[in-house]
């Protein structure tokens, strides 16, 4: 990406052309960052600075209103929402990654008749839209008596297609000699997996894990229908709750709550940006 061979193919833009390109780049940056900037500054503005026109572009650093966060925290039980989101995201991600890793190892290294057909069946599940499974899964969970429970929130999301696919593709690229060496040493499959394959798959495990993590944290429609008591809601549903509660009269508090929802994801994104982008764009370049 940084090497000159792939850049600006065969034409050198004029000076004017370069100016136009930089203007477009700045416009793009503003369009992308504008809403985020607006969010973060509004979360810190005193009420008077929010309900004013023309808007205050730069909040006065001496009068930041941190109380917006406290307002949000009191308007809805966000502490509880966070705890629920953490539990569901952590256990859900661990469970899904366990399913995905075992399954990927089996498809990459173990012999079985009709393995390709089975893998096709697994991939086929990607064609099933979430809205088709919504009502039946709700009925299943309801029959189990799991409405408003962590099991109900977590279980339907444990099956993994995309993460399994990513991991299997990666495991197939591992050098055969390393695995053969493990076999000569008399290592069984469990030991080969834990001692050789998983350490060598660390980058892809991180990629798949982070993508799974973010998806579970952001999940909206399933937590919305499978819970109906306030103390079992997750953070994204909390925003909807706040909307009905506050009726959009207190933008400062609402923006503060929104900051709390996206900050964990943004932190993860900045640490694992490369892996997330590579994983999510994988299907296009390798598929």
């Amino acid at each position: 990406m940084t090497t000159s061979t792939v850049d600006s193919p065969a034409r050198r833009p004029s000076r004017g052309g370069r100016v136009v390109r930089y203007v477009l780049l700045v416009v793009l940056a503003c369009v992308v960052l504008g809403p985020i900037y607006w969010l973060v500054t509004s979360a810190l503005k005193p009420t008077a600075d929010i309900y004013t026109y023309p808007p205050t572009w730069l909040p006065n650093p001496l009068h930041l209103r941190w109380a917006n966060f406290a307002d949000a925290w009191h308007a809805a039980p966000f502490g509880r929402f966070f705890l629920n989101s953490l539990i569901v995201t952590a256990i859900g991600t661990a469970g899904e990654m366990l399913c995905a890793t075992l399954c990927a190892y089996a498809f990459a290294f173990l012999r079985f008749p009709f393995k390709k057909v089975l893998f096709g069946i697994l991939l086929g599940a990607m064609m099933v839209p979430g809205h088709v499974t919504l009502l039946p899964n709700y009925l299943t969970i309801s029959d189990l008596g799991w409405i408003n429970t962590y099991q109900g929130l977590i279980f339907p999301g444990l099956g993994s297609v995309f993460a399994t696919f990513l991991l299997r593709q990666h495991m197939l690229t591992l050098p055969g000699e390393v695995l053969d060496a493990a076999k000569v040493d008399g290592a069984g499959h469990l030991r080969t997996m834990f001692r050789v394959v998983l350490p060598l798959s660390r980058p892809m495990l991180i990629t798949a894990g982070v993508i799974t993590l973010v998806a579970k944290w952001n999940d909206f429609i399933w937590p919305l229908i499978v819970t109906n008591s306030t103390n079992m809601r997750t953070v994204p549903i909390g925003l909807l709750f706040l909307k009905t509660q506050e009726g959009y009269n207190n933008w400062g508090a609402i923006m503060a709550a929104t900051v709390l929802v996206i900050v964990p994801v943004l932190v993860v994104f900045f640490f694992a940006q490369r892996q997330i982008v590579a994983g999510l764009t994988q299907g296009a370049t390798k598929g």
Partner: protein
Amino acid sequence: MSAVDAPAGARSGDTAGAGDRPPPPRRRRPRHLREYLLFLAFIVPNFFFVIVFAYWPVLYNAYLSLTSWNMLAPVKEFVGLANYTDLLTDGDFLDTLRITVVFVLGIVLGSMVLGLAIAVLLNERLVGRGFVRTMAFAPHILSGAAIGTIWLFIFDPNYGLLRPIFGVAGLASPNWMTSSTWALPGLIIVYLWKNMGFIATVYLAGLQNVPRELYEAAAIDGSGPWHTFRKITFPMLSPVTFFLVITTTIGTFQAFDIIALMTGGGPGNSTTILSWFIYQQAFKAFDAGHAAAAAMLMFVVLIIITALQARFLERKVHYR
């Protein structure tokens, strides 16, 4: 053990000899069997969840679509295809389909065009392009609920970010989310903002893969930038375009969280797309039959779109 075996020394010698020979086929099978069992043990957890929560629901949903069932009552009545004929002759549902088409086309076409334009721009050697590329990707992974909330404030006609921007052009910012004319375009704008960076990133990877010699050859032939783009860049990107159109279409059909936060399908039913309709029927009206039938229609439409796009693009993809 030795006390018992001692009298039959000759036989024990035989067994030792058999152990030295290459193992007979009978002994190989258990080793395969162990590997097969291990394979099953490894895939069973994943397959269990995928079958119970993805495949079984499709069958269950198909069955529900043939019944009339108020979810609060215990009785399901088999009604054949009545739910489907109800829906397809219902004015509200036909409105929903029309709105869904506008919504999906607007978002898919819009984000493809914007994404490709951004990719071409970011493919130039510009200072700061790496930063902008990273930032443009970020909305793709943010919670839709959060994005919806942010944009609701931006769209606020009095105190929102758009008022001064419209003000520069001497216009009043419309009352986006409470107007049945502006709510749908408003939602489309938000989804464009969310999608364009992801699409640009995938396109960028595609642009890097176009062989440089093609551009050199075009330059020698005196081809202008637009001509080069149309005759080389765009055709070479067609596999990427194919992938993106399908995934964006499938994703857009299932749009939900931003709508839930911003419009709740309204005002009236001006932003009720198919996914919202299904949710409404199932979890607000408790009408399982019509919800299931609408969901089956969505499933069929998505499969047809995937198949059509595959056939249509087959001819355009990969001609070099």
